[in-house]
């Protein structure tokens, strides 16, 4: 009984004290909660295999993200890998699903990739040195969870040769300091100006760091996609050629 009371009391204290949190304090607690800033800085990369369920269609997605900015995203259909997007630090390319030939991505996509390479391992880690800013916005309920709302402003995106503010609204659980949801604006096409929402759940530990193993994406057009991580490997060994544009 005493143990139960003290546990509840701890929660009440945690929640009362958290009312006066600044954005930096929340971010600090968040980074600490997922394993600590040092552990994040030591991270050299990750290989993630996840299932994507979008409108009843299931795909296996394989993503490599390296701390130097290199990325490799592909999906597996019937045992064959289809490369969506690869960044080798200089070039951004993908394989055309129809022709199955590699093609360079547009200058705009490359520019925006270059502007986001410091997001890994975590966009809040040393955010100021990346030129990002944060702002405490409000308290809101998300999925029945009391949350802090924090505005993260990253380096502007380039859309049609003009710079566009790159803002994400993070909702951190007031109890755990983990992000429950992120919202951001769509900048292209028929969904321009509409908000997209990513919800996070199933936090699990991998080598001392915590990751949300489920991400539910509610697109601006109401379509819903669910990413479920099946396997997450930290600091994978990857050959340089893996990222290089295949000239042949």
């Amino acid at each position, binding site marked *: 009984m005493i143990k139960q009371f003290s546990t509840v009391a701890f929660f009440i204290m945690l929640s009362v004290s958290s009312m006066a949190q600044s954005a930096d304090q929340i971010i600090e607690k968040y980074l600490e909660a*997922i394993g600590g800033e040092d552990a994040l800085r030591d991270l050299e990369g990750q290989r993630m295999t996840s299932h994507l369920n979008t409108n009843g269609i299931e795909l296996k997605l394989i993503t490599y993200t390296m701390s130097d900015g290199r990325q490799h995203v592909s999906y*597996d259909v*019937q045992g064959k890998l289809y490369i969506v997007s690869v960044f080798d630090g200089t070039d951004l390319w993908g394989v055309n699903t129809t022709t199955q030939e590699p093609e360079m991505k547009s200058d705009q996509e490359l520019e925006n990739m270059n502007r986001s390479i410091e997001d890994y391992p975590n966009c809040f880690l040393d955010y100021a040195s990346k030129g990002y800013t944060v702002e405490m916005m409000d308290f809101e*309920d998300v*999925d*029945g*969870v009391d949350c802090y709302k924090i505005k993260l402003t990253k380096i502007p995106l380039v859309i049609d040769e003009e710079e566009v503010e790159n803002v994400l*609204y993070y909702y951190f659980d007031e109890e755990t300091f983990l992000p429950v949801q992120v919202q951001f604006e769509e900048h292209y096409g028929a969904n321009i*100006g509409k908000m997209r929402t990513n919800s996070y759940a199933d936090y699990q530990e991998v080598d001392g760091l915590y990751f949300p193993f*489920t991400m539910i994406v509610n697109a601006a057009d109401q379509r819903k996609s669910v990413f479920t991580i099946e396997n997450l490997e930290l600091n994978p060994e990857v050959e340089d050629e893996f990222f290089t544009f295949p000239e042949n």
Partner: protein
Amino acid sequence: MLKQLLTICLITVSGLAMSQSLSELTGDDLFGGLRARHIGPALMSGRVSDIEGHPTNNKVIYIGTAGGGVWKSQDGGVIFSSIFDNYCQSIGAVAIDPQNPDKNIWVGTGEIWTRNSTSVGDGIYQSKDGGNNWKKMGLEKSERISSIQIHPKNSDVIYVGVLGALWGDSEERGIYKTTDGGSTWEKLFYIDQKTGCSELVMDPTNPDVMYAAFWEHRRTAWSFSSGGTQSALYKTTDGGKTWNKIHNGFPTGQLGRIAIAIAPSAPKTLYSVIEAEDASKSGMYRSEDGGATWKHTSADFGLTVRPFYFSRVVVHPKNPDIVAKAGLFGSISRDGGNTFKGLGQMHPDIHDIWFDITDPDKLFSATDGGLYRSLNLGETMEMIENLPLSQFYHVSVDNQEPYNIYGGLQDNGSWFGPSQSPGGVEARDWEVIGVGDGFRVYPHPTKPHIMYSEMQGAETIWRYDDEIRQTKVITPFPVKGEPKLRFNWNAPITTSANNPDRLYVGSQFVHLSNDKGDTWTKISPDLTTNNPAKQNQAESGGLSKDNSGAENHCTIFTIAESSLDQNVIWVGTDDGNVQISQNGGKTWTNVTEGLLTAKLPANTWCYHIEASVFDKATAYAVFDGHTKNDGKTYCYKTNDFGKTWTSLADENVNGFARSFQEDLKNPNLLFLGTEFGLYVSINGGAKWMKFENNMPSTAVHYIEMHPKTNDLILGTHGRGIIIIDDITPLRLITDEVVAREVHFMEMPTFYMNEESTFGGTSGETQFVGQNPSTGARIAYFMAKRHTFGKMRMNVLDKDGNYVTSLSPGKQKGLNLVYWNFNGSVPKTAGGKTFSVGGMFAPRVPVGTYTIVIEKGKESFETTIEVAYPKKSVFTSEERKKQEAITMELFNLNEELAYLVYELEEWTKHAEAQSKVQPKLAKTGNKLATTMETLRADLVITTGDNYVGRAENKLREDMGEIYSTIGGNYGAPTVSQLEGVELIKEQMQSARDRMSAIRSGDLKKYQDQLKKLEIEAPKLLDFKEYVKKD
């Protein structure tokens, strides 16, 4: 740290959950994944009140609307997105900070085009991030904000023109100023309690110079008055410290509403449109000297018509002689206001016009029927088709499958359209069944091709037969010896649950027809207060007479016949009476006294009465006091035929009430529509919760519940039709349910959907209404959001075999997960390209399925029943045949996949070993060649996924026939069966070839491996292979 937290959370989750009770929960805690869907429509859109463009970027345009909030375009007016859903949806003015136009946006709420049905505002709001987030900045009692002017050099200095209360005296009017970005406001200029600032404009070259139009006006439920001695145009040259009338050249006598605009390219040039006592002096005035003198240039009808509704004048940004005036059709002058021509064809009733800042020929026009765009300076207009702003007064539904929704709209006629449609509910799905302003529309209860609609003031009531597309006017007329009939602008019509041919219409009397409107019987005396002082509508309008019928008063507004007893009829009137007959209209009892005892103010408009479906003595009544300047919520219940009434509204409800719906199964589940959204009570009205899941804070004018689908259908006055599909889970929420960690709700049998998916012809610039999901809806309640550890949902068949996995919702409260009745896709052989057919997941057979949620170490499960559609041309035998052959082909796909896997693994091994082991090279290379030859006959190994694709191989042909038969609902055709036989023969041939390889080249290779002590490849067995990702 997370580990510690995780432990704490696991310890406390159950404790917290067990202590949770219903009374503590808010809507956020409870409604979870139950979301509203919007079906518009947008083809007639709704009233747009204000247009505001970015001062330097013509791609960014904002519109404020009469009841649909604020919308923003970032692509020059092609696509608009709603950015103000959570706040008051009635908009007076939108303003953009010239110093920080990408971020600082101000919205003044409360429409200023003061028609009878206009809504109310609740203050001024600011966004500092281009509309993503908003904060209320005060002026809560302003009701209507006409103008916001932001100092061009100081973003904290803002002037606000407040028109103020329409329906009563108010001191919160005039011009307000803030110098601290809205933290505090100073009332800068005030006339009196009846006169508000209808327009405030600022000289673009000198912010100390402003012009302000003041309008004396008043609306009551029965009259409107525009004009008086206090209406005037003022000018300040010292930033608002002093204001002087600038009437040199204006007509003498009383003035009404005044419009004022500055030519941006020549700020001394002003245009003003005046409503004058002498009508010949009304119209356009022009000043060339900053208002020192004025010259009357035109009194055209297009300029002077209905000033209270059309009073916006706009000057071209680059040409001071091009000036446009909002109006019935909209007018434009190219000669400085001397002569005007009409704008191109669009919906009438134009409220604002915006000229593009860079394209001299592009303009936008705000109308009663949405937003229009012109690329030739108004010669021709095209409608923006993605603005679902439709303003319904009422909705009803029929019993068809899918059901149709019927309703009438402000200035946009009467319509019906489907609640769902292949590809989404598109503009083409809606059919018009009445013109003018539309109000109550009903289908005949048993003959849905017959429907009733009306136009304003019951000027015409139609009976329309959709089968033969014929109409008959059935309006009741006065008979000899009886007084003139008084119909409300929004006159009540209703059908009967007891007699399908019965129709009621309300004037001051109740009119009853039992033959679909051919014969009318008056079954009541005058049930209103019949106050003669409220019946002088011919005098309504003030300086400009305006007797449209919109102010008709002392009329019946709502009629409800009890579904339990046709003799029990409830009537509510716009002047505050509630009357009941318990003998089919022979005698009537005025039960208003009981309401007054329960603190309802006298003469408060009875907006809706809901006769209970559980008890004929029970009814609910909602009252709207806003036309008496009273915005409180009035919602009452009686259990004794109206003798006594109990108030149900609590402090959680915001806004005056217009609509109510009692649940059809659970008497404690109630729905209340107010001017600011939808509220739900699950305990009989003891506590209300706002429903905000994709539900904007828009006025809910009518609520209907579908008896078959249990959908809640909302007729909103600004955001079209909004549906909450199947609210059954709300009926089942109890204290016990909310205390459990995971609680599966009781679910009905789920019927498969076999309808065609053909449809969807709209482009990306057109609004398309969402369809409901057609899958099985698995509903469960969670006491707390799931955050830590795995949470999975699997479907098992009756024998416990895995069928498929679903993505579970993880919210606190209700979670709804949809299953499309499909199992998993077969393991399909890999190739150079993908097999589209191999991506097909077969439908499961009907029967019982178990839903299992694995949440951390715990497991929760329930069973559901899956059945074939009730209506279908296919027999059970045909379906069984289809299912059996589909699964036979499913298995063949997997067998082929495994065969190809074996070939690939051995080929890889043989090729690799042949390179490093010379003694193996001969047999290894031969094996690789043989196997590759077979593989190339089984799967595509060349080409691409489009026009460069290779000829189909066995995998592709097998996938195609598998998905074709699996995608059908009945037995396979003879041709398909012949195709299956061919596939089976080809598969047998592949097996035979593989057997020959196994006993030939492969055996030799294996023998050699053994001899050389080289490890053979470790192949998965079939079961392991098909399970592998």
